[in-house]
């Protein structure tokens, strides 16, 4: 009897290697689990159940997969079947990881809850009335709900870290440029990164090693300066850890979240780290505004390709070509993409470019500089990943600005191109709290080392209480 709720990718690989379990049995276990629990979780948009002898994996539905529907959670791509594989899907295939299915997401990765999916929200396995986070909420719900041992999400403003936090999982937003964006449905090209969502830090490191590395098809990628190390050590001696005041004391952080994170910080000291306070004076204060100018501006350009001509939804009715474009796009896009395209277009338009987009680009420099200064004195920075635990479905859906606040703590590092690892550090009112570990560029091995040591000491049970 395979316990898909508890099984890690590492353990699954071991079972396959020793022959204790066959690829077919493993596949069958996930298909059965999906039958039992996906009707209530709605983690998957498309189940494939590919046969194979490697550890099965779930992929967010903005990751292009040849011959398998890819919707980006939007009606404008309903029925779209890609004729090519993204580099990431290709690397997963090359590593012989069979595809379980494509998971739900906020439309075009725009959102923090999956409530912006044109196909309905996913539900948090810890509490079905609550969101799993977003935009990679489908992947998080699948992994936490025992419907996949591991999966891939994407992160632009926090869309891997935040759902990992809300679902009690590990999530890595990699250093910008270390994972190819070729074939990833583009949202904001200077921010988008694909990364793992897993049950353990070691699984995360393993999956990152599989997907990372320079890609000739994506000129913004670079080779990793050093190979990925699967973490072993369980102490933090020699590590200098900074606690940015503005990230840890921002308005809106729930007391239970603050408490769990404080305990994790104290634990890191017990494990041998040197802990001290640092400042990010303007990064948190101006991070959201900066992101909600830069990202929509880039999105307005990237989403211009959806015009009803070559693929996807096309509006019915009479009219000229311009009418076709305009009607197709209004009808095909949901409310959040429409909002962001309009904001982005406004911010880039003549007369407003300097004050909005131009200024936001400069704020980005300030944020990068503040983080670089912090990293002169510290190796890693710690903060909560999300200001809150999982909120109820419907609670923030009608208020875009309230929803945007979910990204308050994940955005600043993203603007600086910095990697971040979220690990579960405790519960608040029975719901998972995530600890965000930030590093300088290419410091993934250090983050894995710290994350693994803390994970072992925290001993957080990632199987949702209601499913044990």
């Amino acid at each position: 009897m395979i316990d898909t709720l508890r099984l890690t990718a590492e353990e699954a690989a071991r079972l396959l290697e020793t022959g204790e379990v066959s690829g077919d049995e493993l596949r069958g276990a996930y298909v059965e689990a999906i039958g039992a629990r996906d009707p209530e979780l709605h983690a998957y948009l498309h189940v494939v159940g590919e046969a194979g002898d490697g550890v099965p994996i779930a992929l967010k539905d903005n990751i292009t997969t040849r011959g398998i529907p890819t919707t980006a959670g939007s009606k404008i791509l309903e029925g779209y079947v890609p004729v090519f594989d993204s580099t990431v899907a290709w690397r997963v295939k090359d590593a012989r990881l069979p595809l379980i299915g494509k998971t739900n997401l906020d439309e075009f990765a725009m959102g923090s809850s999956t409530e912006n999916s044109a196909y309905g929200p996913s539900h948090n396995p810890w509490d079905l009335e609550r969101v799993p986070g977003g935009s990679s909420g489908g992947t998080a719900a699948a992994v936490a709900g025992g419907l996949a041992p591991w999966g891939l999400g994407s992160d632009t403003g926090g869309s891997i870290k935040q759902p990992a936090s809300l679902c009690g999982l590990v999530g890595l937003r990699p250093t910008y440029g270390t994972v190819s964006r070729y074939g990833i449905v583009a949202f904001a090209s200077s921010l988008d990164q694909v990364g793992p969502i897993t049950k353990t830090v070691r699984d995360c490191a393993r999956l990152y090693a599989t997907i990372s590395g320079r890609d000739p098809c994506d000129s913004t990628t670079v080779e990793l300066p050093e190979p990925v190390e699967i973490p072993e050590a369980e102490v933090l001696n020699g590590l200098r850890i900074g606690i940015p005041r503005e990230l840890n004391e921002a308005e809106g952080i729930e007391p239970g979240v603050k408490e769990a994170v404080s305990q994790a910080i104290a634990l890191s000291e017990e494990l041998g780290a040197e802990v001290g306070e640092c400042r990010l004076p303007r990064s948190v204060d101006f991070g959201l505004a900066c992101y909600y100018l830069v990202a929509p501006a880039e999105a307005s350009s990237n989403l211009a390709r959806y015009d009803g001509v070559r693929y996807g939804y096309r509006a019915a009715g009479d009219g000229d070509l311009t009418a076709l474009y305009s009607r197709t796009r209004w009808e095909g896009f949901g409310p959040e993409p429409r909002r962001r395209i309009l904001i982005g277009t406004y911010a880039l338009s003549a007369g407003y470019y300097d004050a909005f987009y131009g200024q936001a680009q400069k704020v980005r420099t300030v944020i990068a500089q503040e983080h670089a200064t912090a990293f002169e004195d510290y190796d890693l920075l710690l903060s909560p990943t999300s200001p809150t635990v999982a909120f109820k479905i419907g609670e923030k859906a009608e208020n875009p600005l309230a929803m945007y606040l979910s990204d308050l703590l994940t955005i600043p590092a993203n603007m600086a191109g910095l990697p971040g690892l979220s690990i579960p550090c405790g519960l608040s009112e029975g719901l998972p709290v995530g600890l965000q570990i930030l590093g300088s560029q290419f410091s993934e091995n250090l983050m894995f080392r710290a994350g693994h040591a803390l994970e072992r000491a925290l001993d957080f049970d990632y199987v949702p209480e209601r499913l044990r």
Partner: protein
Amino acid sequence: MAITREDVLHVARLARLEIPEGEVDRVREELGAILEAVGKVAELDLSDVEPTSHPLAVVNVWAEDDPRPSLSPEDALANAPDPVDGAFRVPAVGT
């Protein structure tokens, strides 16, 4: 931040989004609220700061000019809403 109906319609036209008449005011209010919030970036004096457009310092990434196979015509048309004679059919460009 107050934006006018004309602003909204202008931006919608640039973005090729046809906002139904009955929704223009709602969109105007929503955009106004968001622009108010993001307009916060104007509070900082950043006259001496260089803009960042790219988080990683890569410059001039070259590739060899080697021809390779691209999409076949069949693949290129595989998802076309209205393929005709190996082309994508669309309404005429208006006057």
